[in-house]
């Protein structure tokens, strides 16, 4: 293990709110070994930004990692030419052009339908009833698994995420994860003949069209599901909560003083939905006096870098007018989120404007607890609105 100074955390408190510990690490031990996580954490924005690009040292290839073992080796767990080749193959399914020309209309239709059905109820849970559905429906379109329900999409996504974080080796969690990947494979089996016959812009289809080995194509679909469901869900709900609790910033958007996209980018900085990305040290390396040994586990703490006080003024403040160009919410290297453009469109162009437009007088109707540090978002969020306009 690295010889970085040790920093002890209380895992429960860290899960509930990691920001106080992360701030103490940034100030006192920006590269710290956390025994409870058995990993060395990079917590400063510039350290992450510079070192994430050094793939020969901080490698994404983690053959023993839970994600590879449970979900197959996807492109996020490959580096260099192998990674770029698969990335290029999936690009037509998530490129800005495809998002604009193909997915945006689908997002609008799905979101409109969901809100129309919910509106007469006058109340719902923003996370479980609204954001989860909008996110799941979008992911069905992009992956090509249109034969799956949005509820199943959320279940299999969460099951894989839990499996990948199952460092304690809980057998039930592992069994649930296997059940989820098996469900995805069954849905893929069903869609493959259809997509072979009628190719489209979905990720499953473009991978087949590119001639990618089926095992890789399946692993990448699982990656898209594990990484494409809960983040948009968490940002949609989290940003609604944030704007309801910062009404002056909501009115700035409504009066044209700022954009939904600015709000989206600032939220992703402020409460990054992906707070951490793991790496394996591939060769001995010294960084700022800390020596890393091969096979060390390193966590790039995006959520911490995005609150780095040496980069952002008053980083704990949500301010949609700030310059967020230094944000590393989508990563800061060759593994930069491939779904970035799809998420910007889904959330900033479709979900947020439609939610505030179609659910008049939207307000909070209860407590909104947040949780998580590797993935962070609101856990539940009761809301109400006026059933009829006028």
């Amino acid at each position, binding site marked *: 293990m690295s010889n970085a100074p040790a920093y002890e955390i209380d895992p429960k408190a860290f899960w509930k709110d990691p920001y106080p510990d992360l701030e103490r690490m940034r100030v006192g031990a920006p590269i710290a070994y956390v025994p409870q996580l058995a990993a060395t954490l990079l917590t400063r924005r510039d350290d992450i930004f510079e070192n*994430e*690009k050094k793939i020969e040292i901080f490698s994404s290839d983690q053959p023993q990692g839970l994600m590879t073992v449970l979900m197959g080796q996807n492109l996020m767990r490959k580096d260099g030419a192998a990674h*770029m080749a698969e*990335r*290029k193959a999936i*690009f037509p399914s998530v*490129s*800005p*052009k495809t998002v604009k020309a193909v997915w945006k209309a689908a997002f609008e239709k799905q979101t409109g339908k969901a809100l129309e059905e919910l509106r007469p109820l006058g109340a719902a849970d923003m996370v479980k009833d609204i954001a989860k559905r909008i996110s799941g429906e979008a992911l069905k379109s992009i992956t090509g698994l249109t034969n799956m329900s949005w509820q199943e999409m959320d279940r299999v996504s969460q099951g894989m995420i839990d499996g990948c974080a199952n460092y304690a080796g809980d057998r039930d969690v592992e069994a649930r994860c296997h059940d989820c990947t098996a469900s995805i494979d069954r849905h893929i089996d069903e869609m493959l003949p259809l997509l072979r016959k009628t190719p489209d812009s979905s990720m499953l289809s473009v991978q087949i069209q590119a001639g990618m080995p089926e095992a890789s194509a399946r692993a990448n679909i699982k990656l898209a599901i594990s990484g494409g469901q809960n983040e948009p869900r968490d940002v949609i709900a989290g940003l609604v909560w944030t704007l309801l609790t910062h009404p002056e910033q909501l009115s700035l958007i409504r009066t044209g003083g700022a954009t939904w996209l600015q709000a989206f980018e600032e939220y992703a900085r402020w409460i990054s939905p992906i707070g951490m990305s793991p790496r394996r040290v591939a060769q001995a390396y010294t960084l700022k006096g800390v020596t890393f040994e091969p096979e060390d586990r390193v966590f790039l703490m995006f959520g911490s870098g995005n609150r780095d006080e040496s980069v952002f003024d008053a980083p704990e403040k949500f301010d949609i007018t700030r310059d967020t*160009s*230094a944000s*590393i919410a*989508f*990563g*800061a*290297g*060759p*593994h*930069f*989120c*491939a779904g*970035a*453009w799809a998420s910007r469109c889904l959330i900033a162009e479709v979900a947020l404007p439609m939610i505030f437009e179609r659910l008049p007088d939207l307000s909070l109707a209860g407590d909104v607890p947040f949780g998580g540090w590797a993935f962070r978002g609101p856990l539940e969020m009761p809301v109400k609105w006026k059933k009829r306009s006028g």
Partner: protein
Amino acid sequence: METISVTWVLADGSRQSAEVVTGGTLMQAALDNGIDGIVGQCGGSLACATCHVIVENAPASLPEIAPDEDDMLDMAEPERTSTSRLSCQLVAVPELDGILLRVP
């Protein structure tokens, strides 16, 4: 080691020049020289459009814009111009000695 001269016109109109070793990308050169406005978020994997430059003067013809770069340029901020490029796709070659780039 062969180098070429690269000049960036920054947003405030000032100029910054550097001797850049051939073989690397002009995005990397901008990062190495702390050029304001070039973020280079994705490290050159054509995923972010944060290394957008406007080519003011190129001493030789530049490689064609590939479809993927073209697609990403549509998302560049501020909007692309007829000579916009993503500098991660431009390699410092001897023919480009003296190239002038504007940071939009």
